[in-house]
């Protein structure tokens, strides 16, 4: 009997594990990925989704199984088994979640590092802050590691001013002011953001990046688009009555098309 229950436990755990992995690879709940750190994000998402599926389906199955198997049949009286605890089990289900949680924490630290979260915050061409005393709190993606060495020198600085209820982008090169963000494909963009009134947030779901835009407190967000197209910019922090309408677009172009756009719109010759 103990042998049989061991086999059943092992088989059901195996089915659960394989099922969790299968679901995570076959149920796609994410939008298109369009920046260097989006695939890194999706990797973390998949791992979390696998663990989540196994845990949720496992616990739900245990509860439903218990309710059916151990239900009180008509006419039945008396109590269940007199079982007040089991130290081995308690240690088991303290240790396993602790290990899983530690693994997830370290893994997400690694992902965070790969996304550039641990990089120093830089905005200008030379990789230095405009002023050493300026207090800038960054967002994640402040220069992905992969891109940092090669493209920092050529990162494209853009300033974002958020206000109720619009995003205003300013390109120092060419002194262009626009309500839509134009960026070239494959080049790191460094957004320096500040709000004029209340807190807003700059979010591009396809880039998997979000950073609050705060009054009196500049923030920096670096990202590298990898896909040509037109993606939404969404304000994600309640900013007033028209919060839901505070949307814009980021237009990712080939380098030549972007250069043309820059030339056509610049106020000074480049």
């Amino acid at each position, binding site marked *: 009997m103990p042998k049989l229950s061991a086999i059943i436990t092992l088989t059901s755990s195996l089915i659960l594990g394989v099922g969790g992995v299968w679901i995570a690879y076959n149920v796609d709940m994410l939008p298109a990925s369009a920046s260097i750190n989006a695939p890194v994000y999706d990797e973390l998402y998949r791992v979390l989704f696998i663990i989540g599926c196994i845990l949720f389906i496992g616990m739900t199955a245990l509860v439903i199984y218990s309710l059916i198997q151990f239900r009180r049949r008509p006419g039945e009286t008396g109590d269940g088994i007199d079982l007040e605890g089991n130290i081995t089990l308690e240690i088991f289900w303290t240790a396993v979640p602790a290990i899983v949680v530690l693994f997830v924490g370290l893994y997400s630290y690694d992902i965070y590092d790969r996304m550039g979260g641990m990089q120093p915050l830089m905005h200008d061409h030379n990789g230095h802050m405009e002023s050493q005393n300026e207090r800038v709190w960054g967002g994640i993606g402040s220069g992905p590691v992969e891109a940092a060495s090669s493209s920092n020198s050529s990162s494209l600085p853009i300033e974002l001013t958020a206000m109720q209820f619009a995003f205003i982008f300013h390109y120092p090169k060419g002194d262009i002011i626009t309500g839509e963000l134009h960026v070239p494909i494959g080049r790191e963009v460094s957004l320096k953001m500040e709000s004029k009134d209340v807190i807003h*947030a700059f979010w591009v779901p396809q880039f998997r990046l979000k950073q609050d835009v705060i009054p009196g407190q500049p923030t920096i967000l670096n990202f590298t688009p990898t896909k040509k197209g037109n993606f939404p910019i969404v304000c994600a922090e309640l900013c007033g009555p028209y919060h839901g309408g505070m949307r814009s677009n980021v237009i990712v172009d080939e380098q030549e098309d972007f250069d043309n756009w820059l030339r056509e719109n610049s106020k000074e010759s480049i």
Partner: protein
Amino acid sequence: MTISLKPNNSPPERLQPTGWLKYLSFSLDHKVIGLQYLVCGFLFYLIGGSLAGAIRVELTSPLSDFMPREVYNQVLTLHGTIMIFLWIVPVVNGAFGNYLIPFYVGARDMAFPRLNAVAFWLIPPSGLMLITSYFINGAAQSGWTAYPPLSITTPAAGQIIWILSVLLLGGSSIFGGINFIATILKLRRPGLKLMQLPMYCWAMLGTSILVVLSTPVLAGTLILLSFDIVAHTGFFNPSLGGNVIVYQHLFWFYSHPAVYIMVLPAFGLVSEILPIHSRKPLFGYTTMVFSIMGIVVLGLVVWAHHMFTSGTPPWMRLFFTIATAFIAVPTGIKFFNWVATLWGGKISLNGAMLFSCGFIINFVLGGITGVALAQVPFDVHVHDTYFVVAHFHYIVYGGSVFVIFSSIYHWFPKFTGKMLNENLGRFHFIITFIGFNLCFAPQHWLGLNGMPRRVAEYDPQFQLINQISSVGALLMALSTLPFLWNIFQSILYGDEAGDNPWNALTPEWLTSSPPPVENWEGEAPLVIEPYGYGEKNSNEPQEVNK
């Protein structure tokens, strides 16, 4: 430890109204106060639920076309504030805590009955004040988080009334917390040890510690915010040199523990309900106690995970990621122990049991998305989106509110002396469970794909999923009807419950239903094994030391 077994601090009998009028009086009886909390909380739940209905109607179309945008923001602010401060916190703490804790510790009443009555009577006026602000000059419209500078720049009257109301409710909560700590630690019946207390006492002790430590921080923060609004000081106003991030730190220092203030008592209630209806001892009593205290300690050091996109230095993000993820360990222990409590039992599939099991399933999902949200890289994508809305509704509705319903099914016979109709209870559970999951599960997808929270208008590609969610909300609203019908029908025509319809061992069942003013006719029973179910034990309450 000195314990008074006489009714303590009771005023002369002639001052206490009798009959149903006592529920409208400044009663000092903990049982009356508990039911006052429960009924008052439920009325606010109906109001908060109607506001949620208005939100779901607005979101059936991508345009802002059902109500003006300002009104929409007022509605979502009122919905959040009412559900948290006037429904879940008062009911899981005030209602069940007041009713049950004196029974569990073997006392005739709470330690400070007058403070107790004051704590309750702060709630109806502050709730009414909050709601009437809508009709005077417009309610607050900066969300329940009231982040400055938005809360400083929106119309001041509504925001100030909101602050006053939350301050009073916070005061009520602190009074309650002090009272529970004093009662549990100082009013225990002689011979009753701490480690013999029913689990709900431990949950309330932990919760009350959180309330007493963190609520004053919220009070101080809101007072500073009100100075910024009326006196134009610059604590949080960046145009006057203030810092908006400091407000967020202070706010979440209370408001994250507030989540545990809403779910820890629910954990305690489930730990009472499951053993009785599965006829088994509570599995792993000692680890359950330690995991509650673990959650209390960890719960105080995780607040900044609400601010991962606000502008926090990398080291802070890492610390709060790890601390938050580790809360999953003590929480997980509790869930495994509950499943182990069910295992091998003789389970009655009644309303109380079904709602408790629904709670376990919903909360596990909410906990998994919670661990995911604690990871900085994951959070920067879904922060402030419908993914978060789905996550916390799985915690506070799928968790706490399911437990409130479970507890009402469980203790209604004690409250009234009448049984509820269990078939209607099962029907209520099925509709609520389906409606809830239909409403909130699709919102995970909405958040991942780009729908921010707190919006009245959205990208048309999200319309279908929003409509599905609204159908779920409609089912949830309808599920209230069989419940209310069951309550009124049973109060009037229900079967007599008798003293102990569940054949339970905890002390509130060892007296008449409803119990007398002094809780027990004679001396308070000494229950040293509140979970002594199981085949080898007799079903008689054990009143002597082994």
